């Protein structure tokens, strides 16, 4: 019986104009945009590769260890084609130095792109599904019950010994089958385009992630179909059902996400918690500075001059850059000379002695400041933006977006993985300095007796987290979507059972 019902519904849906129209428009949009998105990704990849090469060359050319700020690049994520998330927006170039534990807030954009292009908005494949598929699901659902009721066919069907639950199930299954056609077909076309481009190499993990995105898309589609079915079940006329469905769509997809973010947009003024953390960090560095000055005052060299009167072709600077919003405060200093006059030979041991003390002390202070900063950043900036993400999840669009970002690895956690790797790499660089005994060496600030040796410096490499990590991050939202499905289905069932025909 169920089979007959499904067959009938399926035929009804497939033969409609809306099915053909939706199929056509989805395919068109997905294919056109995938081509654009692939081009965009290729461009970003190229600029990443150039940047990596430039940075590698730059560091090899540094003559002293002190001048060697290692720069590291963030590769573009190929799955940003599906959901771009934060991948394109956050910085993709960061410096690593002994005096700061780097975070994503210190990252910069490598200079290859035109920043004025930022005012043009761009879309990704998930956005197309988000808008078109939800609209389509509602269009398939609004007259499913109300229409049959109006035409009287519902009464006809119910005169047969059919369970009402079966009717619902048949309608649901057949409509979902219909809706899957444009979704899967367009995805297959997108995958075809992706696999034919040579620049994008996908591993088994990536296919797993894409599978996750497909699964989430189906759950999202189903939520909107059920919302439409619910509206159809509670209204008597198709006209009313349609209007309600359209306005619900507008409210959930178009209005709510933007409205809620506009209302709680954060200001530039740091909160009290951030201010106190900043002061604490500043105190740590002030203490460091006092000790440093004390060291300078008490060492064998007269005066407190941190350059020990050494001068020549090169430069020296020291300052404390700060950013109260991102809680950045550190001691930044560099002294580097290509050649040293012989008259400074007496001062050199003093400087060596000073740097042998100063750099480990800076590293320690940076670690201490990082402990405070890490916690404070979590408590202020990260917490605030996570609260916004939670609020967005009151609309299925928010859940869908969050889950697909997690699968693609372009969500905040995915991007932060990179910066975890960067922090890890900083440790490697520092170990390298220790191994080379760089701080106590003359090469820290002067290159006259041979330049610094960067040849054996381990290269930075970043691997995106495995698919199981992505799954772990995506599952809560996927689970929410599924729960919503179940809840909606039960509601529809209850309403439909009780309704008069």
């Amino acid at each position, binding site marked *: 019986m169920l089979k007959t019902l499904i067959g009938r519904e399926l035929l009804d849906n497939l033969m409609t*104009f*809306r099915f053909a*129209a939706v199929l056509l428009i989805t395919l068109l*949009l997905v294919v056109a*945009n995938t081509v*654009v*998105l692939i*081009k965009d990704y290729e461009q970003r990849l190229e*600029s990443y590769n150039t940047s990596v090469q430039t940075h590698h060359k730059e560091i090899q050319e540094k003559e002293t260890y002190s001048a060697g700020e290692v720069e590291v690049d963030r590769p573009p994520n190929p799955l940003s084609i599906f959901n771009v998330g934060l991948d394109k*927006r*956050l*910085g993709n170039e960061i410096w690593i130095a002994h005096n700061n534990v780097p975070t994503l*807030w210190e*990252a*910069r*954009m490598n*200079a*290859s*792109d*035109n*920043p*004025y*292009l*930022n*005012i*043009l*908005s*761009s*879309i990704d494949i998930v956005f*197309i599904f988000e808008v*078109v598929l939800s*609209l389509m699901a509602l*269009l398939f659902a609004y*007259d499913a019950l109300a229409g049959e009721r109006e035409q009287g066919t519902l009464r006809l069907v119910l005169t047969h010994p059919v369970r009402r639950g079966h009717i619902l199930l048949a309608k649901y299954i057949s409509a979902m089958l219909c809706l899957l056609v444009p979704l899967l077909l367009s995805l297959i076309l997108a995958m075809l385009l992706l696999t034919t481009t040579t620049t994008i190499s996908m591993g088994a993990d990536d296919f797993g992630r894409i599978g996750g995105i497909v699964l989430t898309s189906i759950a999202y589609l189903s939520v909107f179909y059920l919302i439409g079915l619910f509206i159809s079940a509670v209204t008597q006329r*198709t*006209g*009313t059902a*349609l*209007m309600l469905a*359209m*306005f619900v769509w*507008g*409210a959930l997809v*178009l*209005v709510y996400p*933007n*409205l809620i*973010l*506009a209302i709680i947009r954060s*200001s*530039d003024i740091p909160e009290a918690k951030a201010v106190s953390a900043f002061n604490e960090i500043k105190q740590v560095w002030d203490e460091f500075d006092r000790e440093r000055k004390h060291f300078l005052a008490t060492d064998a060299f007269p005066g407190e001059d941190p350059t020990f009167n050494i001068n020549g072709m090169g430069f020296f600077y020291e300052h404390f850059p700060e950013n109260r*919003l*991102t809680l950045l405060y550190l001691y930044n200093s560099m002294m580097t000379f290509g050649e040293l006059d012989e008259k400074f030979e007496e001062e050199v041991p003093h400087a060596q002695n000073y740097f042998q003390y100063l750099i480990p002390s800076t590293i320690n202070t940076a670690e201490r400041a990082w402990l405070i900063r890490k916690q404070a950043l979590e408590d202020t900036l*990260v917490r*605030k*933006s996570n609260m*916004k993400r939670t609020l*967005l999840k009151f609309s299925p669009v928010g859940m869908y*977006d969050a889950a697909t970002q997690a699968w693609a690895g372009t969500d*905040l956690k995915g991007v932060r993985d990179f910066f975890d790797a960067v922090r890890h790499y900083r440790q490697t660089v520092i170990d390298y300095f220790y191994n080379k005994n760089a701080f106590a060496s003359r090469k820290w600030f002067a290159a006259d007796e041979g330049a610094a040796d960067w040849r054996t410096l381990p290269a930075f490499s970043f691997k995106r987290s495995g698919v199981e990590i992505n799954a772990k991050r995506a599952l809560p939202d996927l689970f929410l979507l599924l729960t919503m499905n179940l809840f909606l289905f039960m509601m529809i069932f209850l309403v439909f059972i009780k309704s008069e025909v």
Partner: protein
Amino acid sequence: MALLNITWRELYDNLNSLRFALATVLLLALMLTNAVVHLREHPVRMQKYRDAATQSVNTLTSRTDLYDLAQKGPGRLYKKPSPLRFCADGGDSLLPTLTDAASYFWSTNTSKSFWRMTYPSATPNLKNIDPDATQIDWAFVIGYVLSLIALLFTFDAVSGEREQGTLRLMLANPIPRHTVLIGKFLGAFISVNIPFVIAVLMNLLVISTSNAVHLGVDEWGRLGIIVGIALLYLCLFLALGLLVSACVKQSAVSLVILLLIWVSFVIFMPNTLASIASRFSPARSYDAFQEDRRQKRRAVLEAYYTQREKTEDPSKRMLIQSEYVTEDAMQDGRLRQAYLSERIAQVSQAQTITRISPVAIIQHLLEVFAGTGLERHLQFVDNVQLYDREYREFIADTERADPESPHIIGIRDGMSKKKVSPEAIPIFEDTLSLSKDFNAAAMDMLLLTLFVVVLLAGAYLAFVRVEV
């Protein structure tokens, strides 16, 4: 008379419908949020601008030495935030708010590099980890929500009546068909306008009663133009709805067609076309620009060295050096300006191509009249460049006015030692000109009107030929 009757009937039908109530609620919620957000953010923006601009002017007027003024330049120049930013955000937060007269490029014992205008670019989103969102401004409410509402009010205007058979009934009376169509159009126009106008008035009421935002005569005029444009845009979608409704037999099919047109033209077309078009004429990369700049500057420097070799006469050498200082600054300024134009041209070209989509047209029009977005930024850059010239002329005039000076601009000893009075120094003023705005908007207004006329004519033809 018949027209009035039909309009009344349509209006009455609509006012009692669910869609009218829902549209009112949606528009009111959006417009009130818009007003509240603007009141919260605009004063902060204004304060920031005023503080920064005052500081910059103070630094400038505190200089009394002509050489200082000529070498350091006018400092930072700030873009004045528009009080009408609630109408169209225009990605203003992603555009730079200042230009910087920088002079830190080199210094020797005898001279320093002169100032040139630099155009820093803004990437404020680098530190922003929040999820993306479209700004809720009038452009969003009108461009996306109002157009959807217009379609929802008209999709069944003809097809629905035909389905119910009331169309046949109506046309049995001696009423010309165009009267019926105009009546339907007017009815829908008025019934969409009621919630829209209420929402707009509430929005303006909230904004104008607050002390935080001051709207002058000019701003009210601009608001009037913006509302007029919005109504024209509304007509476009009403005409589209009527056209499709007249062509199609069933309302359900009519709605599907309209929604798909809406989704592709309003939501996807601007984004996709912009992404494609921005690739056609990419600006040089920053590295390429720097390389070019380095080469050209080196050429000027080498020309200076060879010139200097030729003479031993110190006064002549001074003259040559002064020429170099000026040429170095002027050339670098020109190169930077050219690179800025290149970058902006890439974006504005991409924006031009998106004008096939009506939502891109209205977005642009609203930005122009609200004084935000790229068009406004171009005006700001124009203002800066005008001021740049004015400032240089001021330096040259002051120098000429002093008969005791040797008139060698670029060298401290070669310039007038007279104190410059702070009142004489020209101050940068960022002004907006409505006539320039009209120029920028003319093309779009014509395009929008053309769309409306074509669609209305199409709807008329379709309705005349319709079989009942």
